[in-house]
């Protein structure tokens, strides 16, 4: 007889969740795929904590823990593993695992004993760590495995994994599969939350599709096919397969001279890294090992110096201060939006080189604000972007770049942690930037939907370029990328 770990019945929290029914059995890996993001955070938060419900019941291991009549606001024994690590980075792995436990009563720490225990737990999962390794020194994948073991030690009823593909590379994702298999055979249960069905299908036993705060489909194993999922993502495929869009990209095979040159770069894991991005070209740099992306982005910002080699953009050293260069780090909605500034000032932040006396003339700023009303509505007059949604904040960042009119744009994982409709908006923006003549470099650990906007793909291996693939050859990534561009009919 199956043991139910989590059951949600008719859970309703207007305007985020409507009539949610969901059940997860012990030792299962169930995926939750968000066609759009509405309600997913709220759904996860009611799993983690018994907060007030408008209607419905929540059961954990067949025990009613929350309903519309009474919510005790207590935390449930469910672990959440996502982009933000739950490990204390300044402490060792042993301390994170055995000392910082929910019901830990350890007073005297015997490190050698803890190291033996740690190795006993991590070795079957393919991880060998030295004694007293600081959590901060672990790679993203190692941190993930340590958090999984920590959740196992805490006897978490359910482990929620969110945005994992944006955290670890595709190679690591392949390594994760047997680890999850092993942990489920030891009695653990997982809810895998993501935006792309390919990664969910490769890991999960069952899937729930969610859109507009409703569960719109419960997929059983034999239904987890591309054909069925396409019926739910018609908007996306219709948009990316638009005839004129496809023709435009196919025409861009031969570009002009190189705008960005990365020559013989040696720094940390980079080994004589050499590549170029031509004018009007969009290049995706895929670093499956997740070794160089962060450092390369720092070098484009000119915050890190190479041991040897150089990065030139239009013949000059790259720098974040240059207005003809735009750099977008991961999670730009958090890192590039300033809550102290108004929405309009956030958007105009890097337009001062194009509009004379921008910051002195309020009337000019107001006139620009009126032009932006069509895209942002009343939000444009808000004195702070605090109340703006994630989508609105991302759009503010890219609107800022559109006004800045850079020659070169470097973006880190633009399609990470966003839903299908946000991906459509982003692809539209990248298309517009490309049509305006901007060269784009996308740094990524997974292909996601980036091939849709790419002219060329550069694959790195061990910190150096392994091979280059042109748009016409992208079909070989059919099973890896979330979506690949279709070829125009000859």
């Amino acid at each position, binding site marked *: *007889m*199956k*043991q*139910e770990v989590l*059951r949600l*019945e*008719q859970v*309703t929290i207007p305007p985020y969740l409507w*009539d949610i*029914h969901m*059940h997860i*059995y012990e030792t299962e890996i169930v995926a939750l795929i968000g066609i759009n993001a509405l309600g997913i955070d709220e759904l996860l938060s009611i799993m983690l904590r018994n907060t007030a419900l*408008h*209607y419905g*019941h929540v*059961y954990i291991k*067949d025990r009613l823990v929350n309903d*519309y*009549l*009474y919510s005790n606001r207590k935390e449930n024994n469910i672990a959440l593993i996502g982009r933000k690590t739950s490990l204390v980075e300044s402490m060792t792995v042993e301390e994170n695992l055995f000392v910082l436990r929910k019901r830990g009563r350890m007073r005297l720490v015997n490190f050698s004993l803890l190291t033996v225990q740690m190795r006993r737990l991590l070795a079957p999962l393919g991880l060998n760590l030295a004694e007293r390794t600081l959590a901060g020194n672990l790679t993203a994948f190692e941190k993930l495995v340590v958090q999984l073991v920590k959740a196992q030690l805490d006897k978490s009823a359910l482990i929620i994994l969110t945005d994992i593909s944006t955290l670890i590379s595709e190679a690591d994702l392949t390594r994760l599969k047997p680890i999850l298999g092993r942990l489920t055979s030891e009695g653990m249960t997982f809810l895998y939350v993501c935006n792309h069905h390919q990664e969910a299908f490769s890991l999960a036993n069952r899937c729930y599709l969610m859109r507009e705060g409703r*569960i*719109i*489909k*419960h997929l*059983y194993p034999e239904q987890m096919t591309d054909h*069925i999922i396409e*019926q*739910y993502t018609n908007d996306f495929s219709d948009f990316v397969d638009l005839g004129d869009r496809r023709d435009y990209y196919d025409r861009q095979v031969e570009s002009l001279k190189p705008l960005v040159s990365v020559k013989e770069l040696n720094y940390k894991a980079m080994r004589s890294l050499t590549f170029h991005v031509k004018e009007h070209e969009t290049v995706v740099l895929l670093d499956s090992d997740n070794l160089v992306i962060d450092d390369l982005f720092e070098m484009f910002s000119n915050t890190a110096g190479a041991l040897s080699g150089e990065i030139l953009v239009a013949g000059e050293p790259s720098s974040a201060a240059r207005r003809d260069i735009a750099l977008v780090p991961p999670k730009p909605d958090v890192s590039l939006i300033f809550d102290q500034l108004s929405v309009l000032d956030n958007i105009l932040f890097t337009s001062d080189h194009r509009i004379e006396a921008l910051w002195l003339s309020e009337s000019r700023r107001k006139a620009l604000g009126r032009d932006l009303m069509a895209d942002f509505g009343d939000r444009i007059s808000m004195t702070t972007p605090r109340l703006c949604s994630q989508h609105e904040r991302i759009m503010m960042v890219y609107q800022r770049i559109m006004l800045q009119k850079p020659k070169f744009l470097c973006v880190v994982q633009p399609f990470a942690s966003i839903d299908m409709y946000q991906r459509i908006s982003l692809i539209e923006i990248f298309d517009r930037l490309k049509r305006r003549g901007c060269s784009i470099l996308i740094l990524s650990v997974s292909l996601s939907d980036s091939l849709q906007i790419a002219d060329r793909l550069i694959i790195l291996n061990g910190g150096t370029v392994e091979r280059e693939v042109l748009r016409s050859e992208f079909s070989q990534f059919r099973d890896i990328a979330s979506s690949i561009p279709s070829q125009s009919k000859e």
Partner: protein
Amino acid sequence: MDRRLTTIEARLRFITACLVALVVMGMFLATLYRHGTVSSLWWIALLSLLLVALGVWSHWWVVLPYRRSLHILRLFSTGYTYRSIVDDKVPINEELVAVNDVLQQLLNTDQLMNASKRQAQFLALQNQINPHFLYNTLEGIRSEALLAGLSSVATMTEALSTFFRYTISGVENLVTLKEEIENTKNYFLIQQFRFGTRIKLKIITDGVDEEEILRCRIPKLTLQPIVENSIVHGLECKGGEGTLTLRLEGSHERLFITVQDDGVGMANSVLSAIQRNLSTRSFDYVKRDERHGGIALINVNNRIKILFGEQYGLTVTSQQGVGTDVMISLPRSIADGSES
């Protein structure tokens, strides 16, 4: 605790009395202090402490139950729940308790059940006299007879008579899932004479405890109306082959039956209307015209909720081009040989 303090109004009166008593006591002690009878100011600290305690107590004893009652009333008015208003432990006042009692009589479960049963019987009767149903069935028998396959004629006739017998007798009973599935197979067999190999029935049972799942008790005629809906509104309109899948799974406490078809699916507006009717309680559908569609689903949903509780029932998801899924959630109750 005094039984009279079970309503929020009574509790509020009690708290007000306590507050007045504290104020009077404070004034009295202040007078004593002014006349020099009491020299120290310890009584101010004591009164403050009592005031804070009264505040905290009021929050737990009055404010939280009041919020809960208000929430229940809101859910009642929007149709989410009927039972909770009757079961409210701390109602707002005595008058509302009396109103609830009257309401309970009006919402008498037996009466609702009768209405629901009548509707089920009506639909069953309608099936018997539905000319298309009979015509198609008899046409099938005739064709088979013409083709001189007498054994298949016998099979079909047997299926038809078994189905009618099962449908007409004791709609109010609980039956085992096995019996209900046998009836569904019978119904499907009859429909197959009409559709041929165009429609297929697939039954997937949880392999771990298949035997036990099949012994679970469910209300009679729970599956057949849903299967009929799937065939008529899903598979019949679809060109080419269609498959209807019955998926049976269970946990310690629950039994889940999912009826899936890969038919044409529903338009969003139709799906929203059905979902709204399933998530709120209403018996208006009994009065409605059968042509409105979705009556069978709402009827089955209401019968389950009346019999087992508001947390059980039907959930429908659908997508055009993919098909429709109806998940039935029931308590897991194993047949012990006698019917309750």
